């Protein structure tokens, strides 16, 4: 029972990371209908930038965290403004191909700057801190991910519902043309969404780094996060985080109770099942046009 509980906490922590990466996908998709396959690689870059800030330049953990998030926000903004905006009007798979290849480019770039060896993330305020909940020993590393996700989700909720910019983003993602007529600067909003999504990716990466290793191939977590986004239906933000939790928990349980090999594919199996039953996701908002 204690073991199961510990597994569940580990799975939820892992799932929160998937959920956060997936949140980045969904933010961008809702606003621009682009699917950013490089989201996992944005997370990887964010982790490396934070690593450089904290380890190489000796910044305080929180300062380095903020600096990395800011740097990635600028990067995300420029990525949209300089690259992705140019291909509006091309078929959707052009976006898929573009973002996949950007992912390869980022990975190669990270390998070039930081090397392809795995790095250990410097100690954080949560390292080696444990808490005992009724006989179950939990590490703060994992709890910090869960708490971080909760706080971020709450902040995003407040941001989207109670700020002018958040409302503008919602308007632009519901109907770009109508939002434009109402005076929302859609282009800038889209770039800001990319910046926001890069920040979310960085937060996911930095929270995740202490319990994983830091290496360029971390970008591949993005593929599993994609499964989370699909299960969440690419529609609601909360559905996406829930999708991430489903993937994380089932992966951890599969690693413990199923034959080897299932850990790697359980996320994809779940996603395929969901796609077969509901081709547009569990919590989707898509409608079919009648001819």
């Amino acid at each position: 029972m204690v073991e199961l509980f510990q597994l569940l906490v580990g799975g939820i922590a892992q799932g929160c990371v998937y959920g956060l990466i997936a949140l980045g996908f969904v933010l961008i998709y809702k606003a621009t209908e682009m699917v950013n396959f490089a989201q996992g690689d944005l997370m990887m870059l964010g982790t490396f930038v934070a690593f450089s800030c904290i380890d190489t330049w000796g910044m305080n953990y929180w300062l380095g965290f903020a600096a990395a998030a800011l740097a990635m926000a600028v990067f995300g903004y420029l990525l949209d403004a300089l690259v992705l905006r140019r291909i509006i009007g091309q078929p959707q798979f052009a976006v898929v191909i573009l973002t996949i290849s950007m992912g390869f480019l980022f990975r190669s770039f990270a390998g070039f700057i930081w090397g392809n060896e795995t790095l250990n993330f410097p100690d954080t305020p949560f390292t080696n801190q444990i808490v005992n909940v009724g006989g179950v020993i939990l590490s703060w590393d994992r709890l910090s991910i869960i708490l971080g996700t909760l706080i971020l989700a709450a902040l995003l909720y407040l941001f989207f519902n109670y700020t002018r910019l958040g409302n503008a983003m919602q308007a632009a993602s519901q109907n770009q043309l109508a939002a434009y007529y109402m005076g929302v600067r859609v282009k800038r909003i889209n770039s800001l969404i990319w910046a926001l999504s890069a920040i979310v990716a960085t937060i996911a990466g930095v929270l995740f780094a202490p319990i994983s290793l830091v290496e360029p191939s971390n970008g591949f977590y993005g593929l599993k996060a994609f499964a989370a986004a699909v299960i969440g239906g690419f529609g609601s933000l909360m559905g996406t985080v829930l999708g991430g939790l489903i993937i994380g928990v089932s992966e951890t349980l599969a690693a413990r109770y199923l034959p080897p090999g299932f850990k790697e594919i359980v996320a994809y199996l779940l996603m395929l099942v969901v796609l077969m039953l509901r081709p547009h996701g569990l919590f989707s908002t898509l409608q079919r046009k009648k001819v």
Partner: protein
Amino acid sequence: MRILFKTSYVDDINLFQHQGQVFWYGALAAALLVAPLALPEFYVGELAQIFILAIAGIGLMLLIGYTGLVSLGHGAFMAIGAYTNTYLITKGVPFLAAFPLAGLAALIAGVIIAVPANRMSGIYLAIATLAFSQIVEQIVVRWEPVTRGFQGMPVPPPDLLGYALTQGWQFYYLCLAVLALVVLAGINLVRSPTGRALIAIRDSEISAQSLGVNLFRYKTVVFALSAAITGLAGALLAHRMRFISPDAFNFLLSIQLLLMVVVGGLGSIHGAILGAIFVGGLPQAIALMRDYLPAAIARTPGLEPGLFGLVMVLIVLFEPLGLYGRWLKIKAYFDVFPLYRRSTFKRQRSYLKTERVR
């Protein structure tokens, strides 16, 4: 500028539209036939590799370029073809039987993925094929009695009626023959009613459906054909590598196949072949460039995927029609010499087409 007068229905059916094409394609065929005599062994092997990639490229082109269904998991069909072929040959089945069976195995896998894929569209389909390829990769790793997992399997040379093709040039002609057959099949498929139906589906599913195209049937057919052709390419690739292990068929291979059809130019058989030349030749080009690059850059292990990525980004941004599209533009420029207009190839639509409402 050449103006074609068609005086009989045969003119429409002919593969070659005019004498110039007969001459140039004949010259190409002759050059490929004598290439093993003139080139060193190493380059003969590289050419065979390009042929194999071109076969897989045509398979994927049918799916992406002609039907508009994006697959990010075609490496899996190559793996299925390669492992079926190798397993059957090691069990004593002759190559001439094992090779079509490898295609058949991939075809069946294609039908299996096509049934759920028919319900999906766009991005969901791409990600479902990606998931499929990850699952196949795990099966290959874990199904050790057949695939021997990470140990890998040695691949015996192909034999034709008891005569083993051990030499590089023999294998070259085998690949060339298969490629020629696949190209012919591909050209004839895309100008047949089936091919027209596929193109109609690509351009608009709704209008294709209204015109009586059975979406389910044609999508299943194209998935099956595409998978079968890619499976054949996988079987040949196994012979070329002489040793297969799961990591030869990873995500990067699927991306290379995708890169091929995009770089070459979507929606043309020429594009698949030009893309194969590009993808097959790039590692050689990098190897040659290594001597001239600064050591720090040249020795980075991730250089090749990074360059692939960079090229794809540049192609999508600046030449969405690919290498073949660029060639058509150059040809059009000289055909109509002083009168070429840049808008000839321009896309009509310049807004985001929503896929939220289908």
